[in-house]
């Protein structure tokens, strides 16, 4: 409790935080190939390359071993600062740690979805099971049920899976979920679904009064919402990259 520790001169406190982070989705494991493309990008937008922290996503690569050290060196040479790796096999995880990088589980494994064999294209990240050799228990994706009013200043999060609020979310409160957000009451605060970038996530509520709605980083403020929808039950989801709000009735 903060009241007890006020004077003890603590060295630090742990706080949860959501920072914007650039994900570098690798389509090739060849450091030379990466170097060429980076050099091209650097000349186009030098302002971006200011020791920008990036997460290297290797989910699309189907290689058990990566020249991770060389890839990192190429990034650093172009003023990109790899801070973590997402996805990959166990050896990839081990070598990330050895290089002092963090490791995140692959995004697709965090949320089970139907395994369609979509061909890999440059335009779209394919939800293919490249890491099928490391099965994640389905139970880990269960969300969270919160009963009661989420009050101003409070934040309720379900990092994986859906968040269900049985009650109202008041103005100044924030509800976040890796999956979808369901509010069985008035939604007056902020609701963010798909906080890890899941475009399939959605927001459902019984009475729309939200200050902010966001799905996978695409957001609308109260001002942007059609006034006719206010006070109604709605679902909010991404439709062709656009945040769409539709009544449930």
């Amino acid at each position, binding site marked *: *409790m*903060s*009241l*007890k520790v*006020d004077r003890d001169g603590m060295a630090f406190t742990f706080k949860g935080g959501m920072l914007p982070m650039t994900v570098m989705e690798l389509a090739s494991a060849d450091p030379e190939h990466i170097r060429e493309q980076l050099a091209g990008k650097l000349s186009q937008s030098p302002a971006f390359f200011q020791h920008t922290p990036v997460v290297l996503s290797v989910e699309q690569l189907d290689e058990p071993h990566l020249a991770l050290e060389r890839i990192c060196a190429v990034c650093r040479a172009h003023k990109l600062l790899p801070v973590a790796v997402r996805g990959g096999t166990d050896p990839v995880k081990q070598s990330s740690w050895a290089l002092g990088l963090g490791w995140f589980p692959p995004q697709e494994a965090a949320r089970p979805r139907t395994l369609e064999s979509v061909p890999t294209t440059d335009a779209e990240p394919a939800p293919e099971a490249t890491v099928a050799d490391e099965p994640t228990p389905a139970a880990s994706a269960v969300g969270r049920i919160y009963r009661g*009013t989420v*009050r*101003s*200043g*409070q934040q309720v999060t379900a990092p994986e899976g859906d968040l269900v609020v049985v*009650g*109202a979310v*008041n*103005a*100044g*409160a924030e509800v976040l979920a890796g999956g979808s957000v369901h509010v069985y009451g*008035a939604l*007056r605060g902020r609701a963010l679904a798909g906080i890890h970038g899941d475009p399939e996530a959605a927001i459902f509520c019984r009475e729309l009064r939200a200050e902010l709605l966001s799905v996978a980083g695409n957001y609308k403020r109260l001002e942007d919402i059609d006034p006719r929808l206010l006070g109604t039950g709605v679902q909010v989801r991404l439709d062709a990259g656009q945040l769409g709000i539709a009544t449930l009735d």
Partner: protein
Amino acid sequence: MAKIIVVTSGKGGVGKTTSAAAIATGLALRGQKTVVIDFDVGLRNLDLIMGCERRVVYDLVNVIQGEAGLNQALIRDKRVDNLHILPASQTRDKDALTLEGVETVLNALNKEFDYIVCDSPAGIERGAQLAMYFADEAIVVTNPEVSSVRDSDRILGLLASKTRRAERGEDPIKEHLLITRYNPNRVDSGDMLNLEDIQEILAIKLAGLIPESGAVLRASNQGVPVTHDEGSDAGQAYADTVARLMDEDVPLRFHEYQKKGLLSRMFGGGRR
């Protein structure tokens, strides 16, 4: 065992001190041995509202820092026997309060009193958190105004997480909503939030509704808690609130816009 009640709101100027004084007086008038503590260190006001400002020698900070005994600092109310006031210090700031010190004072009062009413400072910082930390019940004072409702909502969140009951996982603090400065006339014309809207947002039980009243300002300036003004609407509304705090079922008054007739006045007065 005393019941510890914190009067809090988040927002300033909504009537915390007025309400703390009126409710403590009401409890004492009903025979409950009551002490009301001013936690607003540095901005002492409760002594003025209670009309005992000329009798303050020692204060809460003196007691906590061991410079005075509790009985030296407690001021006996002139009007009601069962009522005591523990004033705040005007010269210190909120850092002079410690959690351990507050606990010691409350433990000592616990044995002697039936009710301990803690008048919280505005804000959500140290002073306000110390005032609410040991509470069994909370009276959340709210004006019919959006900013006040939002701040009350914030305070309710803190009551559910930053208090001893919450940290120990005991039964949660019993929360009461007290709406002050309610003017049915202005609610009717849309200038003020109505009772139902406030209740819907805050989702806690209503303990009382105090109408906007000239009697409140008069009482403050005279240093006589408005509960003593039995003929006034605000005085009656606080008496009703006290009854509800003591688990009596009292119908709500003063919430509808109506021309007051002689009959309703007599009926209203006859209830007490």
